[in-house]
């Protein structure tokens, strides 16, 4: 008697036989390779283990020593991944791949320093842990049948938190770095106006000016714009900056043209 392969355990014998014939008709390259099948099986196992872990933590109310150990390991993973993406200059691109995180993420135009990586990744993961516990785990927002593993879900949460942390930090960096010299500060105070007693008015003017001039990358152009706002002549500006009057005229004209071409796009989106 010819060998008859056993049907798959969960399939009736009749269907199993039909399945065998169908499989025989399928081109081999349609089928997953052994490696892919193994990888998929491992992934299913990991998802099941994730679910088991979450159930255990839920029974303890997401608190206590077990939860702390889990949170510590999650934190180690989050710090490693976010830190690596920051060091590799990939973090903003990763954020922008997330739905709803496109707006307001401006590059600082350089890499992050080691201290900045520690500061920002720490703040990010701390915020992510809190939201992951309260908004995801405690509200049953993560489910194994959603397809994403627990760690992937957590990294998604980290990217959302990083976007917030980064925007606040980048705004502070930008404001503090636009005007670097005492001379700049004096200029800005003079341009900002408001009486010395009117501290609130001065603060508001300063914020408006910081925002306006932050978009001008070239410091010479920025100073030329400030002097112009203070009603200096182009000749005076040229002497101050050590350039020709023609150069001042050109840099102001170019800057105004640039501003006309991109009038506050980011602000409109916000």
């Amino acid at each position, binding site marked *: 008697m010819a060998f008859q392969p056993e049907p798959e355990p969960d399939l009736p014998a009749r269907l199993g036989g039909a399945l065998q014939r169908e499989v025989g008709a399928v081109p081999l390259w349609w089928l997953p390779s052994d490696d892919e099948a193994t990888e998929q099986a491992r992934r299913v196992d*990991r998802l099941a283990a994730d679910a088991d*872990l979450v159930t*255990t933590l839920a029974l303890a109310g997401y608190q206590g020593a077990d939860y*702390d150990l889990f*949170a*510590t390991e999650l934190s180690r993973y989050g710090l490693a991944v976010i830190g690596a993406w920051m060091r590799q200059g990939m973090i903003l691109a990763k954020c922008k791949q997330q739905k709803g995180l496109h707006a307001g993420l401006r590059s600082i135009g350089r890499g992050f320093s080691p201290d900045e990586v520690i500061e920002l990744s720490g*703040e990010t*993961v701390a915020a992510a842990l809190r939201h992951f516990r309260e908004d995801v785990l405690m509200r049953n927002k993560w489910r194994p049948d959603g397809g994403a593993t*627990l*760690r992937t879900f957590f990294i998604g949460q980290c990217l959302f938190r990083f976007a917030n942390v980064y925007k606040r930090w980048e705004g502070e960096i930008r404001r503090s770095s636009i005007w670097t010299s005492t001379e700049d500060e004096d200029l800005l105070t003079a341009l900002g106006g408001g009486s010395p007693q009117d501290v609130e008015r001065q603060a508001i003017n300063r914020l408006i000016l910081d925002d306006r001039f932050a978009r001008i990358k070239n410091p010479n152009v920025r100073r030329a714009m400030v002097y112009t706002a203070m009603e200096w002549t182009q000749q005076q500006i040229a002497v101050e900056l050590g350039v020709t009057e023609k150069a001042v005229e050109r840099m102001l004209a170019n800057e105004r043209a640039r501003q006309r071409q991109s009038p506050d796009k980011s602000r409109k989106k916000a």
Partner: protein
Amino acid sequence: MNRNGRSIRTMVERSSLGTPKAAAARRTISAETAARVVARSKSIERTSGKKSGG
């Protein structure tokens, strides 16, 4: 040990945090550093007035 008689450590290592790559990534960060971040996350909870756990 939990209801299944397994430690939470074992469960973490069997979860998606326990893949070779994820485990290697975790090893680059000390447990002390991570514990400080966990403590920071709890202080965020307290300062925001939300229910504190852990």
